[in-house]
């Protein structure tokens, strides 16, 4: 087919027209169907950088390689173990969500979660002591993402917390990722609550839930999370704000092995009731699965694919395949949505959590069309959900071959955010999220949609431009 211009000369041309409408009109005068483009100029200061990045001969293939790896990943749940063991966390080191952060800049819920973790690890006897100690810099903080881990909301991980261990073997050597076990809703550590009931629940999770799940998973063998996620999408989950179907599918899958795990029946019942009471139980698995997929796409020189989006309650940060481990950060926005009870916008903390790894991998807000049941929860109607998923096609590199949306004729979810397309169109990734209370210890105050700050994409674009060939 070489030299044949892709078949251009053999049939009536199929034309995309971008620019002067008069030229498209001239085609319509000839009865030619034209696909018009609603083109708008990119920001003036980005033009040179866009030219440099798109002009890099590596760019197109690098993006194809990177997103290809993201799509090829087949994450499996292989184990459940304490963070101290699997991540080699030493006492006094705490992981947190989002880009790196210091105590001084940490928001209320992040501080609350760190205080709770200090109490859980026995490093402080009271919240006041924990806070003094953290402010004095006795604990070390680091980003989950630097340890192949992700955590929802505050995302605080301490050595005695149990972690899901996810593995992908489809992209060369086996790659693993980790996420803590979901605590449920209400007053929970990830929303910055650290009261006695929070610490008590975490202790129970370490003593009962973690070991039972460990034994069950080891008995069962690796659990194919791609299959569960794909089915859940067709059952109304978008895997960020709705995980009800996926959670149920996971329990069905593991039920036999949970029963045979060997724990006393009352303990098994506790475990099953706990999971039943928590529609978001699967979220943490989905996040780790998304993380291992996104990590597979890291480090492709010239690629403008986003491999991480994460918030720490103060900053929103992204990492890009072609720029290594560098973070591009801007101020975290406040989500727009609905509030629980009497809470209102003044109670909401700026955006927080690693759960945007779901949108990074083409789920969550990007799969909104699959989850009409929750569109009102995030302040919209069904057509808005369809429009949101479609709009994300404008800024992504591919459609997922396995994650399909029935109402969009089983087309795949838009996957792989491209920095250059975000800057060109000004369309920002749509993110579904929960809202944490501004004051430490409040817990969840609502849920809704949030957008990343546009400047993080512009900054990443300029970084790519400086290393373009």
């Amino acid at each position: 087919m070489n030299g044949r211009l892709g078949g251009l000369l053999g049939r009536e041309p199929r034309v995309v027209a971008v620019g002067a409408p008069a030229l498209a009109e001239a085609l319509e005068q000839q009865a030619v169907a034209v696909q018009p483009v609603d083109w708008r100029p990119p920001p003036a200061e980005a033009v040179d950088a866009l030219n440099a990045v798109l002009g890099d001969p590596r760019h197109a293939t690098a993006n194809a390689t990177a997103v290809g790896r993201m799509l090829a990943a087949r994450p499996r749940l292989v184990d459940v173990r304490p963070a101290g063991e699997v991540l080699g966390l030493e006492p006094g080191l705490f992981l947190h969500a989002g880009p790196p952060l210091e105590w001084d800049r940490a928001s209320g819920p992040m501080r609350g979660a760190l205080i709770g973790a200090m109490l859980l690890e026995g490093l402080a006897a009271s919240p006041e002591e924990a806070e003094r100690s953290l402010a004095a810099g006795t604990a070390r903080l680091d980003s989950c993402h630097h340890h192949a881990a992700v955590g929802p909301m505050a995302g605080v991980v301490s050595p005695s917390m149990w972690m899901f261990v996810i593995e992908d073997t489809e992209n060369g050597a086996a790659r693993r990722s980790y996420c803590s076990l979901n605590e449920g809703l209400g007053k929970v550590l990830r929303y910055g609550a650290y009261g006695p009931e929070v610490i008590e629940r975490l202790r129970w999770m370490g003593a009962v839930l973690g070991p039972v799940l460990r034994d069950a998973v080891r008995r069962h063998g690796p659990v194919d999370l791609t299959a569960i996620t794909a089915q859940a999408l067709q059952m109304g989950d978008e895997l960020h704000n709705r995980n009800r179907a996926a959670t149920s599918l996971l329990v069905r899958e593991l039920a036999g092995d949970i029963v045979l795990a060997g724990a006393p029946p009352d303990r098994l019942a506790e475990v099953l009731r706990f999971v039943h009471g928590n529609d978001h139980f699967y979220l943490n698995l989905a996040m780790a699965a998304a993380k291992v997929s996104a990590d597979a796409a890291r480090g492709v020189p010239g690629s403008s694919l986003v491999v991480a989006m994460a918030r720490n309650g103060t900053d929103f940060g992204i990492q890009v395949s072609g720029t290594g481990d560098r973070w591009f950060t801007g101020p975290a926005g406040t989500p727009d949505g609905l509030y629980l009870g009497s809470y209102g916008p003044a109670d909401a903390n700026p955006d927080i959590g690693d759960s945007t790894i779901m949108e990074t991998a083409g789920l969550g807000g990007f799969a909104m069309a699959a989850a009409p049941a929750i569109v009102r929860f995030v302040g919209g109607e069904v057509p808005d959900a369809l429009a949101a998923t479609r709009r994300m096609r404008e800024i992504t590199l591919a459609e997922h071959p396995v994650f399909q949306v029935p109402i969009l004729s089983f087309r795949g979810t838009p996957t792989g955010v491209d920095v250059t397309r975000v800057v060109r169109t000004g369309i920002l990734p749509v993110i579904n999220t929960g809202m944490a209370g501004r004051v430490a210890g409040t817990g969840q105050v609502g849920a809704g949609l949030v957008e990343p700050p546009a400047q993080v994409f512009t900054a990443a674009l300029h970084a790519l431009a400086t290393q373009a060939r």
Partner: protein
Amino acid sequence: MTAVMREPVSLPTRQRPRPPLAGAARSAASVIPGAARTAGPDIPGAAGVSLRDLLDPPRTPGRVIAAFPAALYLEMRTAAEPRVLAVVCSDAVRLPNSVVIAAGSRDRPLRSIHEGEEAWAGDGLVEVGALRVRVRRWWDPSPTLGPVALARLTHGVRELEAALADARFGLAGHPDPHLLAGRCADGDLAGAVEAAERIVGLGPGLTPSGDDVLAALLVALRALGGSVQHGRTALWLADWLGAAVTADAETRTTTLAATLLHCAADGQASAEVIAVLRGIAGLEPLAPALRRLLAAGHTSGADLAFGLLAGCRAVLTLSLTALKGHRASA
């Protein structure tokens, strides 16, 4: 070369008020007929050249024999083929007797037209109800394939066979299409005509399955027969088989199918069929072209593909036979 566009200039809109004219130029200057009506109802259309005899002469009357969201079929009151003219949206199957308009069926540009309405065609215009389609462009529904090597054709036949393995044909289980294919490959004209006559008009719908098979067979014989070495027998078969099935098609099948058989006998086919022939000739990727063809109509796409395969096999067998004879006598 001079600059064609400067930035940031917005191009002027099409309707510009004209200054009043003076003197002798007044009568001649406004030279576009109906120019005052630039926003008028004429829709541009692109017509297959098979419709020239219908659209170039003065208007003839006719009526709408079928109206679908993506296509209208008009039967014109004329003695000679083509008698049926299709007005189709850009996303519809493009039959060789089509006038294509740029709008897609989703915009429902044909929604005001109903079965049985009066229609006119001629003077470069098709008129039905409020719809006026002006022919702005002609396209050629006959494939030009250039030389095709027999090895290439062999390869194409295999790909076609593989792709059709699970296709659902309108005449599945019916023996005559297979009989027709075999007799064509044998170069048995009389036998082929006999089998062909048994499937003209066979099957439900506007274009019965039997006619789809025949039309694609005829086009493949003509296009590939003219492109391979030793394709003369295939062309001869196309000539006589075409003449036989078109002779009384008007009485044996639907008017639309009869027109399409006439087009096929002249080597004209739908754009979807042409794309597959181009794919077989190696001019474009075959797989996507086949997918588009098989998606056409209910079983129509599969029936057309069946006819194409039969035609390709016949051309291949007849050429190889002629080649052997040629070598033996050399």
